């Protein structure tokens, strides 16, 4: 790849180092525990209410697999349908190309400011930064994105990028960075929402260009779908004269009917609601109603590379609900920023390294190891992405890329030798029991090199004083 993929942040440390720093932030951990705890319970309730949830999950997975298996056909079909309805379709191989297309489109309108609907695709390609370099200011209008933008911060969650901030921190950011913040702003969520409403109102009413992402696009009809809560999306999708939508090539569904599955799966998995407050569907340009110009930018940026891996490609089913983040014990403790990418958590751990598509990128290669493989992510995934399977697969790929002398390769070769003979296995177990002498309080926190590479990032459990085989021989044999 000619230029680095901005899906990971330049200079971000590998996960173990970033995680260790994040773990020391007790405020962050408290904020995350509270927020993910709230949403976990609600999601379980919203999903439990739907009797055929499993059928819906299987349907969602099958529809997305169909999309991936016939992606070329569906993309061409979408392009035809959008064009027939007065839209213009653009294709972008990578982030730089997508950013250049969008900047040119904005410049052609003469506008130097655009309003934006929260969009993972535009965050992934670093569009705001590219627009700024080109002299165009991008105003984020989603509340959480606004908090991140005003705080000159980075996103830490797919759905709620400012999840790492609690209400009093948000109040502080607003009071400091919002020129029109009301006097005596409290940290009541309703007051904070009101402040954002006032702050953005004039921007919405005067904006000439809006930029959005897309949750879905229907190949058959050319209809584009955005789900949201606040109404900022509707403002951007209907008020400006020009609308530019940047969409990953995998965000398709074949037919309108297929949306009946995803409009059930996504809100319940994402915000734990029966339905999100607003969903907008538009097809090309609607005369007399909304933008007069519509551009759809279809983005590859590592997706075709991901598609080429028969195990890893299931990550492209993702509908960005963030349920896997909310249930992940690793995410809950380290927060999203430790992953060094706009895609954090379990889905980020499998999607980011595949989009980066560079086996020598140590930071991206560290991400599939950011998991205990507990499987909670797979259980909640509305499109049944077997995240643990892909994690293990990518670990294997990364170990293989590092060659036969890497610590993992040596350890695995040794394990294979030990497991290969019952006698060697028993002797190893007896040796293992000696590790009890370095244990404190039931766990081992430090082992000598090379095992220190394991205990640097985790505690090891104390081995049992005798193995099951020894116990059986002594008691039952």
């Amino acid at each position, binding site marked *: 790849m000619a230029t680095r993929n901005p899906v990971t942040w330049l200079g971000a440390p590998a996960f173990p180092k970033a995680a260790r720093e994040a773990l020391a932030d007790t405020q962050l951990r408290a904020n995350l525990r*509270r*927020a993910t705890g*709230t949403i976990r319970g609600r999601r379980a309730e919203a999903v439990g209410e739907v009797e*055929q949830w499993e*059928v*819906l999950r*299987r*349907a969602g997975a*099958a529809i997305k*697999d169909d999309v991936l*298996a016939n992606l*070329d056909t569906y*993309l*061409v079909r979408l392009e035809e349908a959008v064009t027939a309805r007065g839209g213009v379709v653009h*294709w*972008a*191989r990578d982030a730089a190309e997508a950013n250049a297309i969008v900047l040119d489109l904005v410049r052609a309108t003469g506008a130097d400011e655009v309003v934006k609907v929260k969009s993972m695709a535009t965050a992934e390609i670093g569009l705001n930064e590219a627009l700024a370099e080109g002299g165009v200011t991008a105003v984020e209008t989603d*509340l*959480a994105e606004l908090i991140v933008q005003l705080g000159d911060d980075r996103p830490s969650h797919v759905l*709620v990028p400012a*999840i790492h901030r609690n209400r009093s921190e*948000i109040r502080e950011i607003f009071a400091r960075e919002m020129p029109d913040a009301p006097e005596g702003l409290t940290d009541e*969520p*309703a007051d*904070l*929402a*009101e402040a954002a*409403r006032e702050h953005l*109102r004039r921007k919405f*009413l005067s904006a000439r260009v809006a930029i959005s992402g897309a949750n879905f696009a229907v190949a058959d009809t050319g209809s584009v779908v955005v789900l949201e*809560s*606040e*109404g900022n999306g*509707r403002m951007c999708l*209907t008020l400006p004269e020009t609308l530019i939508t940047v969409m990953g*090539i995998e965000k398709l569904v074949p037919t*309108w*009917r*297929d949306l*009946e*599955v995803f409009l*059930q799966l996504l*809100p319940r998995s994402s915000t734990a609601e*029966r*339905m999100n*407050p*607003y969903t*907008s*569907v*538009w*097809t090309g340009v*609607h005369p*007399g*109603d*909304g933008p007069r110009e519509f551009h759809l930018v*279809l983005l590859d940026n590592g997706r075709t*590379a991901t*598609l*080429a891996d028969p195990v890893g*490609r299931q990550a492209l089913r993702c509908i960005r609900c963030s349920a896997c983040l909310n249930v992940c014990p690793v995410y809950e403790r380290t927060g999203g920023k430790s992953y060094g990418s706009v895609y954090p958590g379990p889905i980020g751990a499998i999607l980011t390294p595949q989009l980066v598509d560079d086996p020598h990128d140590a930071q991206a290669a560290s991400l599939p190891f950011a998991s205990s493989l507990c499987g909670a992510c797979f259980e909640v995934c509305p499109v049944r992405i077997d995240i643990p399977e892909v994690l293990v697969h990518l670990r294997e790929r990364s170990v293989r890329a590092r060659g036969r002398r890497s610590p993992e390769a040596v350890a695995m070769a040794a394990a294979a030798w030990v497991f290969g003979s019952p006698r060697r296995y028993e002797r190893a177990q007896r040796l293992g029991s000696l590790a009890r002498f370095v244990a404190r309080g039931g766990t081992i926190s430090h082992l000598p090199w090379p095992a220190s590479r394991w205990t640097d990032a985790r505690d090891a459990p104390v081995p049992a004083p005798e193995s099951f085989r020894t116990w059986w021989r002594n008691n039952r044999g």
Partner: protein
Amino acid sequence: MADARGEILARIRGALADRPETPEVPRDYLRALPRAADLLAERIAHYRATVHRVDAAGLPVAIGAALRRRGAVSVAAPADLPPEWLVSGVRWMPDSPPLSTEQLDGCDGVVTGCAVAVAETGTLVLDAGPAQGRRVLTLLPDYHLCVVRAEQIAGTVPEALARLEPTRPLTFVSGPSATSDIELDRVEGVHGPRTLEVLLVESRPAEH
């Protein structure tokens, strides 16, 4: 610049060299629900929107009463709002010629009908069809009074989508504008209408 479209399509064909199968999509999920009107009323109310059940003859009175309770004086209306809905005591602002964003931003509310309602999820769908008008009409006013007729109610999401024409501009509305962005807890009222009120019109009066 080389042809990005051609290259992406070629990359896709290369990536699918293993010819993955197109799977069968299971469709045996729920499609129909009984007692849809009751469920719709309950589910809309759950979003902290207000629901009133009225019969057809009582609709104009109910519209007048709702607007009076709200204190709405200047009220926007799609150009084709049924004349009997245009009750007196209100300064009606028909969207013909089209109202400016400033006019819509400054008015006290809007009254519309809808295309379809989804009982299971408490959702109203507007499709710019009869009595609905442009999308912006139900966006800028802070108060939206929406009339739903019983025959417009679909039990489930699949049933609702089957009744809709996807190439029309569609807006699905489930309660007032809200956000979950502060500590993942839902708060009502951000940019869209902060108050949503629904008049559910049934041929017989509700049995309550």
